[in-house]
């Protein structure tokens, strides 16, 4: 179980990205995080695995306070938390295989990994994950030769290599053609349902929230303004999260 308590993040330039945010996520949930650009979704995700250091507040993951861990302990903990990015964040010039294998870096011996050595078991695991995402035949091509949707699937395969219990997906479909959104989110749904991985996923389109999320939270200017089931987001709630000028748009 993930518990976020009174989380606040103030950047050095004075921007308040998160104000006193508290919520809980049960194991196996698919939690959608919604809100406008700049509402603090990305900061929230990065505070959970401490890519960004929170200013105050606590994050409890299975009884462990993540904010109190030393950098070395946090690195160990990150192995359980996979992350997927809006811009995929693959190393473009490396092969798909190397990108996927890099998901194991938290587990393998640091010295062996410096020479690009991964055990045969890891190689098998990487191929299995690529197989699962329909990219088995692309294993040895360069990452930047793939399309955007394929690159994001490589990103998911990399996260799966960590054998994560939690996946943080930061706008995983925002850089993709809208028609590809479902293909990516279906994979995330599969991980969530079949492997029991908890998913935190920030999304722009309400349609997608309704279709994939089991629960949702809404952020506005760093504050938690909504918490509940996706169906509960009616017009009033919608305006509360996205502002008076916002209009609903649908895709597909």
């Amino acid at each position, binding site marked *: 179980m993930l518990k976020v308590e009174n989380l606040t993040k103030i950047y050095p330039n004075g921007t308040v990205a998160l104000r006193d945010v508290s919520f809980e996520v049960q194991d196996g949930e698919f939690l959608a995080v919604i809100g406008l650009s700049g509402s603090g979704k990305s900061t929230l995700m990065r505070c959970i695995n401490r890519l960004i250091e929170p200013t105050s507040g606590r994050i409890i993951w299975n009884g462990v306070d993540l904010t109190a861990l030393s950098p070395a302990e946090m*690195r160990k903990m990150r192995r359980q938390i996979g*992350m997927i*990015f809006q811009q995929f964040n693959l*190393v473009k*010039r490396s092969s798909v295989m190397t990108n996927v294998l890099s998901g194991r870096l938290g587990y393998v011996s640091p010295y062996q990994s*410096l020479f690009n050595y991964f055990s045969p078991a890891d190689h098998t695991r990487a191929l299995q994950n690529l197989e699962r995402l329909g990219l088995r035949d692309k294993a*040895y*091509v*360069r990452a*930047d030769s793939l399309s955007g949707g394929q690159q994001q699937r490589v990103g998911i395969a990399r996260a799966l290599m960590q054998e994560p219990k939690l996946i943080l997906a930061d706008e995983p479909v925002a850089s993709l053609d809208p028609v590809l959104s479902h293909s990516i989110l279906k994979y995330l749904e599969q991980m969530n349902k079949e492997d029991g991985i908890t998913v935190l996923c920030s999304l722009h389109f309400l349609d997608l929230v309704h279709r994939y999320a089991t629960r949702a939270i809404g952020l506005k200017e760093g504050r938690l303004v909504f918490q509940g089931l996706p169906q509960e987001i009616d017009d009033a709630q919608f305006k509360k999260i996205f502002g008076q000028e916002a209009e609903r748009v649908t895709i597909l």
Partner: protein
Amino acid sequence: MDTLAPSRSSSAFLASGLSLLLPGAGQFYLRQRERGIGIGASALVMAYLIQWALSNFKMGALAFWLWSVFALFWVWNVWDAYRLARQQSTYNRLGFLLALIIIYLIGWQVTDINLDRLVTRFQDVQVVFRALLYPDLFTQEGGTWRPSENFGDIIGKMVERPAPDWLVRLGIVQSNTRVPTPIFGKMAETIAIGLMATFLAVLFAVPLSFFAAHNIMARVPGGIVIYYAMRTFLNIVRSVDTLIWGIIIVVWVGLGSFAGTLALTIHSIAALGKLYSEEVEHIDPGPIEAITATGANLLQVIRYAVIPQIVPPFLAYTLLRWDINMRMATVVGFVAGGGIGFYVVETIRKGAYEQYAAALWVVAIVIILVDMISAQWRARILAGEEKVSSEAPRPFYTSLRALLWLALGLALFALCWQLAEMDLRKLFEPAPTFTKVVRDFVAIDLSPDVLDTVLKQMLITLFQALMATTLGGLAAVPFSFLAARNLMGGNAFGLAVYYVIRSLFNILRSIEALLYVAIFVFWVGIGPFAGMLALAITTFALIGKLFSEAVENIDPGPLEAIQATGATGLQTIVYAVLPQIIPPFISYLIYQWDINVRIATIVGFAGGGGVGLLLNTYFSMLQYHKAGTVVAMIVIVVALMDFASARIRERLV
């Protein structure tokens, strides 16, 4: 324009009156501050230069003309203030033109340009040109051609030598037998110097570049201080030319290839360090975030997120530097000894022009090859080879070919080490006078007469660069059209012209200005004119190539559009071609001037006049504190030029 509207005519008289008293004052009063300061500063600089030229050089009747044009500039400035106040259009170009006339008149005189000498003394130089047609590389002996003795000196030869110990021990040959052994010539030595210096420079520049990268150092406590210190250090080292480093290094380790290699290495470390650090600053932070999120430690993040991003651009810059180093290796011998540069100095001293010509041809061939190889590899690296295979690649150490390459590389390294006379012990056993020399060198002499002398030579150097850029650039314009494929590719004759001019550019470009100086010293005599001509030749070739590429890159769209209006050929050129090529042309010229200033500081080493001659003199007279003044002046001027040229080009493009 925000002038004072109500009393327009009275303010016009006030402004022009102010400008009459002090150039630019009226413009400044009219709140055209930048313009006012610009005009004032230009007038001051021109007045100083005229005064300086008159008191240092024989100007004759030119004095009258200089002051007349200056007076015209003054009048223009008054008129400009008047028109500005009345909000009428101004004639900036007129003022600019008057200033240019003054600058070029002085430049012409100061760099001692005497075009008639090119004609009257042509008799003398014919022997050199004849030698260029018949270089001493091959001799005819009984009807067959074979490499001459000189060929062996430059490139290398096989001689019978007693078999080396290891061949005997391995039982390959009997002891006391003689085996053919290669003796490498001066050009092989030059290649070794260039390779070795590049290799060593990479070794040092890679770690240093991380300390000069803002994005890395901003994460480390106290890193920003190190960042600024490192950047400043690299910039200073970089602004001192390789040859000047050569002079200094010779004092440390003595004459020879080792000194040349070190000089090249030092300059390359700074140049590469800067380029590398900029590349580190431009890496994509995304992968770093992603690898960190997997739980990787810092080393793993660097290995998997940073290195894959920087290796290709680093390699490309290294290849570019290798190309530059090979060129510099051909001239470093002028001061440091070793390599073909040293050989050229010898041939000039002996008046052995056939040998000199042979050296030039060999340099041209090698540098053209290096240029091609470097460009081709760079293109391949930056394009990024696409690997399309469904099989896992085998680790490189299991492939026989990779092992073979590795062995070859090691052998090449060992050979270069030997040819470049690498002797690290020398670094720790400097000449006994070395510490004193360094102390003298750092305590620069700032007495007025030394400063005056240094300043004089520095100004000559700047004018040399200016005149060379102008003359070389002007000469390049017509040729660049002939070397543009899109204009000449239409028929067989045009294509032939294209290839001839392109080859001319490539051959002339591959030889450093310093190697040309000898020809012009012989032709027009020692002095700034000879140095200027040598610079003009390389400028002609470099600018010609860049110009012709600019012409090749013009957008055909506007051409089509202007032609579609029914315009004539000339109209098409004026309205569609010129607007597209003039901005890049000017930008290239300014860039070239910047480069020429650097080279002009060293043409003096071969008799080309300017600040290099002074530096050489001070060094040979062991007046190191005065030499220090020269180097400090060069660092300042080169840094200013760098800054100014970058600013001007930014505004143009």
